[in-house]
């Protein structure tokens, strides 16, 4: 059941991405991107990253995607033939992309990602280097609380009672703690970056003032 859901999300993700990358109509692409984002959010959930899944849905689907669709609408009229963009049949790019895929797969699953290991019965077998990760037990939906507590207590001493929320199934607390502790500086920098980017985007995108407007603004100042 769990696997099936994973595969469904994986399929939604990959199919949406494929349509996004290939479909000639930009509106369809944007719509397919929505599916991809949703699928990815699902995958997040499957990987115990619930906070991130919510963030994904909010920021991507509610923000970035809407922004992209706004962009589409600002640069194209719906009926315009320009919307239909020749998206396909660029063999070189396709080959490059497939090559990239091959490289990535090779890197993830190829010989460099494997090593020889002697099994218990004395036979030598080639096993993936990720095997130790995969061997980690699938901890269902429950975050390994003990592990986290152990890590945190190692750093900051014994956690307070309030923070050990029994039965709490989420990472929000943990993330919030970390953002304001270990990751405070990156957090602040990112927020400033975000601010600057938004101000800059506004600056770039704003309409050039006409000479009259400029004169008016100067006189006002």
């Amino acid at each position, binding site marked *: 059941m769990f696997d099936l859901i994973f595969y469904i999300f994986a399929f939604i993700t990959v199919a949406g991405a494929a349509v996004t990358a290939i479909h000639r109509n930009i509106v369809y692409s944007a719509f397919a991107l929505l599916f991809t984002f949703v699928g990815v959010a699902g995958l997040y959930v499957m990987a*115990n990253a619930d906070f991130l899944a919510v963030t994904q849905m909010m920021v991507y689907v509610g923000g970035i995607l809407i922004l992209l669709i706004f962009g589409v609408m600002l*640069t194209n009229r719906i009926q315009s033939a320009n919307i239909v*963009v020749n998206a396909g049949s660029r063999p070189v790019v*396709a080959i490059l992309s497939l090559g990239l895929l091959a490289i990535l797969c090779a890197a993830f*699953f190829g010989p460099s990602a494997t090593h020889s290991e002697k099994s218990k019965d004395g036979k030598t077998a080639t096993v993936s280097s990720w095997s130790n990760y*995969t061997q980690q037990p699938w901890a269902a939906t429950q975050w390994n609380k003990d592990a986290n507590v152990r890590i945190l207590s190692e750093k900051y001493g014994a956690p307070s009672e309030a923070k050990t929320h029994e039965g709490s199934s989420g990472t929000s607390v943990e993330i919030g703690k970390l953002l304001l502790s270990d990751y405070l500086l990156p957090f602040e920098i990112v927020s400033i970056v975000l601010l600057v980017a938004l101000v800059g*985007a506004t600056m*770039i995108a704003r309409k050039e003032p006409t000479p009259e407007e400029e004169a008016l603004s100067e006189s006002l100042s």
Partner: protein
Amino acid sequence: MTIGLNHYLFISAVLFSLGVYAMLSRRNVIAVLMGVELILNAANINFIAFSRFGGINIGGQLSSIFVIVIAAAEAAVALAIVLNIFKNFKTVNPADADTLRD
């Protein structure tokens, strides 16, 4: 086969390749931006996967959060640029905006 790290990695690889394909082949700057988003998502999937299955635990999720923030900023700035390009070149085809050649 139990869903493991490899599955995530594969999905991320496919997503990354598709993103690259979209980024290189599309004739619309916004579609290119969509490709960029796909790539960022592929990266995020990797972070999450290693966070879940690797040894980095919650750090991977934090990195993903930063990536999402950066992506949002990128989208905003990129769209502003796209609007300017459209204003100046009367096109959203990145191939037509090739004044960099000169």
